[in-house]
């Protein structure tokens, strides 16, 4: 064999540099990275893969607890990154997760449907577990919705804190202590005292005398009703009997 064939043969035996596999998989978005982000309500760990967020967790229980949880629930390797992608960071700081992509990995279709629907609830508003169940076409699965949200792997960005009990109680919170749910909702501009007062008086909907539309109390249309034109309703039938129709944006009752 002459020199050229020999050298070509050796060239074909060249090895990719050390770490090439991992670097390439990360560039393809097939590896998760994580970093810590400081927010107005405390420090969070966030994990992402490519441009998709795969997990968010409060940092108060420590890094080991986060890594252990990720290994168990997501079951992929996770590596520290020097910084968080700007879009993910600003979404966390503003609790606005709607513009991001998510990696729901191992979640069931039902759980994914619950999380996607929850993502639609606007900042500064709340909905009930029953509303989420109805909207995803599983009106009987209210408890299952609660369970799915309790295991939300991406709290804060997927705003499970905006899903509350129908009776005005705020309910459980996957992202940490129930008090934290109050803090986040207050940060988002919600008047919890006012909401509790409505619930205590069993008022579930607000209507506008000018448009004859009724809404969830926190719907942005409801908040724009002038005090003189605002009507409170306890039940759908009461609102309909008074000649009101449900809001098309917050969809307070079944279609």
């Amino acid at each position, binding site marked *: 064999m002459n020199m050229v064939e020999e050298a070509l043969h050796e060239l074909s035996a060249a090895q990719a540099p050390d770490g090439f*596999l991992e670097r390439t998989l990360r560039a393809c978005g097939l590896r998760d990275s994580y970093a810590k982000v400081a927010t107005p309500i405390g420090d969070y760990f966030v994990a992402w893969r490519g441009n998709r967020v795969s997990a968010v967790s409060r940092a108060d229980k420590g890094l080991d607890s986060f890594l252990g949880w990720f290994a168990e629930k997501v079951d992929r390797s996770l590596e520290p990154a020097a910084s968080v992608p700007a879009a993910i960071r600003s979404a966390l700081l503003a609790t606005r997760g709607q513009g991001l992509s998510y990696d729901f990995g191992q979640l069931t279709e039902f759980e994914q449907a619950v999380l996607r629907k929850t993502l639609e609830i606007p900042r500064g508003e709340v909905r009930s577990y029953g509303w989420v169940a109805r909207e995803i076409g599983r009106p009987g699965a209210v408890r299952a919705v609660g369970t799915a949200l309790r295991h939300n792997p991406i709290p804060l960005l997927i705003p499970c804190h905006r899903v509350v009990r129908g009776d005005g109680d705020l309910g459980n919170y996957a992202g940490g202590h129930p008090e934290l749910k109050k803090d986040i909702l207050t940060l988002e501009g919600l008047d919890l005292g006012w909401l509790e007062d409505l619930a205590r008086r069993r008022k579930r909907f607000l209507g506008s005398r000018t448009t004859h539309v009724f809404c969830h109390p926190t719907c942005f249309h409801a908040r724009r009703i002038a005090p003189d034109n605002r009507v409170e309703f306890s039940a759908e039938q009461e609102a309909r009997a008074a000649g009101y129709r449900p809001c098309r944006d917050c969809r307070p009752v079944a279609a």
Partner: protein
Amino acid sequence: MAPEELTQWLARDLDAGFEEVVRTHQHRLFALALGMCGNPHDAEEVAQDTFVRAYRALKRYSPQRLAELKLAAWLSRIAVNLVRNRVRSRRPELTLLDGAEAESVEVPERRAGPERTVLARAGVRRLAGLVAALPPAQREAVLLHSVQQLTYAEVAGALSLSEATVRSNVHRGLQALRARAGWLSEVS
């Protein structure tokens, strides 16, 4: 793992399957890129970019198309196109006027990367430079056939050429390499 098993894995689970694709094809693709670029720094960039583009493309493929894919030839084609486009978008390198064209492709290394045995050997390093200096058609044909170890038919498919053209390009490329290798060993 047989090529068919790998493509069937891709069709079943793209993410897990693709990890195996990178694991299986990384060294040969790196060797191909090394032959085209002539230095390990650019070669790593090209090889990585090839996999990133391949993954993005595969995401849009139907399971049936995935299962029928000829991975080695397909990846080679992506790498070849990447290098062609890189060359086009880059300013031509300075060529010397005294006819020492082989020397002009010796790109200085920007960092001391974790080079393996092969690159440490002057013969292969010099050859990579010589291969990189071949006319593109001969270079691609030689590398896909001799380094990537595709058949003439596979090379023809990957480069959208006739088999006869590929045979002639491989032959002429090897001849040119022999001539230049001889010339180099004489002067050094």
